């Protein structure tokens, strides 16, 4: 048993889970509270990445770049909601799907033109390029620890916001009974804009912290978006707790699954077969899990009460 | 003594901590009109949902026409002859009135995996649907889009769809809902004509209608049957008066 590989893959999986959670949390809130299918959520992830890359280049500092990009992404999200998306709340899901699909097409093209096919990169500062030893031979890249830690801090902050503050109470109430919250005289429009902005900020944050590793490019949002869908289907629409648990599980299964299936396949078939079957099965694994969860619990693992 | 066609035995349904149906018992005799009354929040809709099969119970049993239907799906219950109508009008709004009824009739004609012949040109089906419409006074309205009917007409279509399934037992959830007094009277008169042909379990708030139609009445309060008997017995029952009718 190669512990170094196992540990490395574990951290990779956990990191993926954190990123997925950040993206899924906003998505599930917007679904749960506004009943809005927002395919353009991945676009907000892309906004964060590109804005951070540009600001980092301009200021010469990754940290400052992200610091400036975050509020810009938040505002961009709220603008999107205010100008277009709020007309969709009354519309059926098909209309929502198509309009947000139109947004994706538009922005992917816009960013492709603005930054070119190579996209944009963020240079990791020297002090974050090292590794930290854990145990035995195992080392963890420092930046990966930064991603995981900051992601967990945000998750904690979100938990605090949702369970201990007044606005969090409104959010939870809205997730389980939208009409009731409106009937209670709460300024629904503003609540919706705030929730959307929060989701945009979370997605943007995920996009920017992953960029030093992967790069900002047009179309980067959709891959993570679809996995985020799987996460909230497994976790239950409207549930942040569900999103967190499902995201971590999904990240771990997807990453560890890929390594182990390759190994397992080699044990049972020849190299050529394994090289085909391995990646094939790994790429399907998380969807198979989703299907199994749905077969048993069609509303996800943690549907909010009253759903 | 006539055998009860519908027997509800110790039915239980809870939502989290709230017990909506609390060991509810009921026996409805063949051919009778039985009314369930009770204050708002007593659990009438939950009860109907369980009897019709739209909601699973947590305990107890339901027997219909000698068969245990507790675990049967709603479509299957409909095929045994137990059909319901809805309090909030639940017709197919973008179909024509006659299509609504035709679909209900079609459901009783075996499976519908027939892909070729046009249903709207099937003379037998359309003729049978027209006949049902005539009976309920919507004979002239067959070609109108169901969503364009007046409220009272929609309520009648609501009943017509249930009747078109050739049932033995009608589970009527507030058939008079939202009707003015004239329309309610008409509906009451109509329902009385159905007596004997069908057994009816009626949930209603309209007390005039209830006392005019019912052979027996059960009073539902907090998920329990607190009294059951003839209209006179219920009218004079002290517990019922204080819980529901109000002392007068």
């Amino acid at each position, binding site marked *: 048993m190669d512990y170094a590989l196992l540990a490395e893959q574990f951290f990779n999986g956990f990191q993926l889970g954190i990123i997925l959670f950040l993206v899924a949390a906003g998505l599930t809130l917007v679904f749960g509270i506004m009943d809005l299918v927002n395919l353009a959520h991945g676009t907000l992830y892309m906004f964060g990445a590109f804005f951070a890359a540009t600001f980092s280049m301009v200021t010469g500092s990754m940290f400052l770049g992200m610091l400036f990009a975050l509020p810009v992404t938040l505002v961009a999200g709220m603008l999107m909601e205010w100008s277009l998306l709020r007309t969709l709340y009354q519309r059926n899901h098909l209309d929502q799907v198509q309009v947000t699909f*139109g947004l994706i097409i538009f922005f992917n093209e816009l960013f492709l033109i603005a930054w070119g096919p190579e996209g944009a990169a963020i240079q990791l500062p020297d002090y974050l390029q090292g590794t930290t030893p854990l145990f035995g031979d195992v080392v963890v890249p420092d930046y990966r620890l930064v991603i995981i830690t900051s992601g967990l801090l945000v998750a904690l902050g979100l938990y605090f916001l949702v369970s201990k503050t007044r606005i969090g109470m409104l959010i939870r109430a809205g997730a389980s009974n939208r009409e009731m919250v409106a009937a209670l005289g709460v300024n629904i429009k503003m609540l919706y804009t705030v929730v959307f902005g929060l989701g945009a900020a979370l997605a943007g944050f995920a996009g920017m912290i992953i960029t030093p590793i992967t790069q900002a490019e047009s179309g980067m949002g959709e891959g993570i978006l679809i996995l985020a869908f799987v996460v909230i289907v497994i976790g239950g*629409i409207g549930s942040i707790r569900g999103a967190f648990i499902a995201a971590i599980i999904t990240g771990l299964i997807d990453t560890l699954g890929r390594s182990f299936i390759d190994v397992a396949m080699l044990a049972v078939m020849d190299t050529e077969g394994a090289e085909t079957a391995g990646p094939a099965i790994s790429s399907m694994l998380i969807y198979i899990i989703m299907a199994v969860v749905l077969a048993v619990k069609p509303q996800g693992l943690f549907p909010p009460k009253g759903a | 003594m006539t055998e009860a066609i519908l027997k509800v035995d110790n039915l239980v349904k809870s939502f989290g901590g709230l017990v909506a149906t609390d060991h509810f018992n009921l026996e409805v005799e063949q051919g009778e009109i039985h009314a369930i009354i009770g204050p708002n929040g007593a659990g009438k809709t939950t009860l109907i949902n369980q009897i019709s099969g739209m909601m699973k119970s947590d305990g107890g049993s339901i027997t219909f026409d000698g068969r245990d239907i507790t675990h049967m799906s709603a479509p299957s219950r409909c095929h045994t002859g137990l059909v319901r109508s809805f309090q909030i009008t639940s017709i197919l709004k973008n*179909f024509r009135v006659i299509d609504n009824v035709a679909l209900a009739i079609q459901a009783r004609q075996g499976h519908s995996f027939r892909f070729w012949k046009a249903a709207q040109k099937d003379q037998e089906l359309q003729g049978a649907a027209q006949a049902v419409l005539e009976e309920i006074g919507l004979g002239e309205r067959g070609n109108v889009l169901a969503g364009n009917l007046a409220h009272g007409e929609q309520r009648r279509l609501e009943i017509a769809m249930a009747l078109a399934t050739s049932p033995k037992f009608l589970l009527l959830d507030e058939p008079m809902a939202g009707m003015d007094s004239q329309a309610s009277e008409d509906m009451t008169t109509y329902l009385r004509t159905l007596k004997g042909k069908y057994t009816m379990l009626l949930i209603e708030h309209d007390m005039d209608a209830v006392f005019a139609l019912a052979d027996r009445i059960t009073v539902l309060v907090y998920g329990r049957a607190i009294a059951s008997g003839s209209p006179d017995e219920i009218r004079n029952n002290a517990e019922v008066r204080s819980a529901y009718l109000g002392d007068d």
Partner: protein
Amino acid sequence: MGKILSLMKTPRGIYNTILVLLCLSMPFLAPAIEQDFYRDVMLRAIIFAIATISLNLIMGYGGMISFGHAVYLGVGGYAVGILSYHGIESGWIQWSVGIIGSGLLALLFGAICLRTKGVYFIMITLAFAQMIYFLSVSIEKYGSDDGLNIDTRSNFGIEAFDLNDPMTMYYTAFVLLMACLYFSHRIVNSRFGMVIRGSMSNDDRMGSIGYPTYPYKLAAFVIAGMMAGLSGILSANFESFVSPDMMFWTTSGEMIFMAVLGGLGTIFGPLGGTMIFLILSEMLSNITEAWHLIFGPFLIVVVLFARGGVEGIIGKFEKRND
């Protein structure tokens, strides 16, 4: 015949007739105006319209918003591609495998997805389609991302019927399109179709009057899958090429838009929508490479303001003239 002629008197009837006549005559029209490639554009539209018709069956008449319908295109296409790669060129075998294969996959996916509703259904159909996309990308042997070239078109062993002849290819697709239109018309008006349409209108009520709607919806899903598989088979033949892109979620998204643009829940809507979409995108992409900048907002405007699509707009003329 008299009925068909009377149908042509309405504005929509005239519009639909024009669509069909355009498809029918393009192989002769195109060379006449010295734009041979219009024939290819039209053939592409005809082939894709078959897929859009199948999506309209479940989405426009059944209310099942499948965001993964393009996956069945891929099954049909790859059936042709993979069998051809292994030397099996018989159209009988390729086409049977393609259609039955897409039907089986639709049965599997539908059985799971139809247990969910609304937003869940949309997302799950999307997820499953992506799963198959990733699966095909991961199999290096059949070309992965780059796709798979197909050497010859399906061979049916009939001398007079050679798909390699452009006219035969074109009119085979055209005849199949007409057949799918007609089949679509019969199925939505049949008893089966009424159940599907009823379930879209009010699924709970359908249950209460005695219809277990799940098996009917599943059957519709399978039929639509097979029809889309046929479209994929034709596409593989015409383009002599298949790639995972056929199954990418954006293809499904475009298919949904074509159905909506044309007019959901109408027989000819999908044909008109597909033709308009493909011709427009062809024209726009010749003007500028960044045509998506125009297309995105166009999609948004159509969805927000043109309810009922083109058939809906033309239908409004009928009402005004009455």
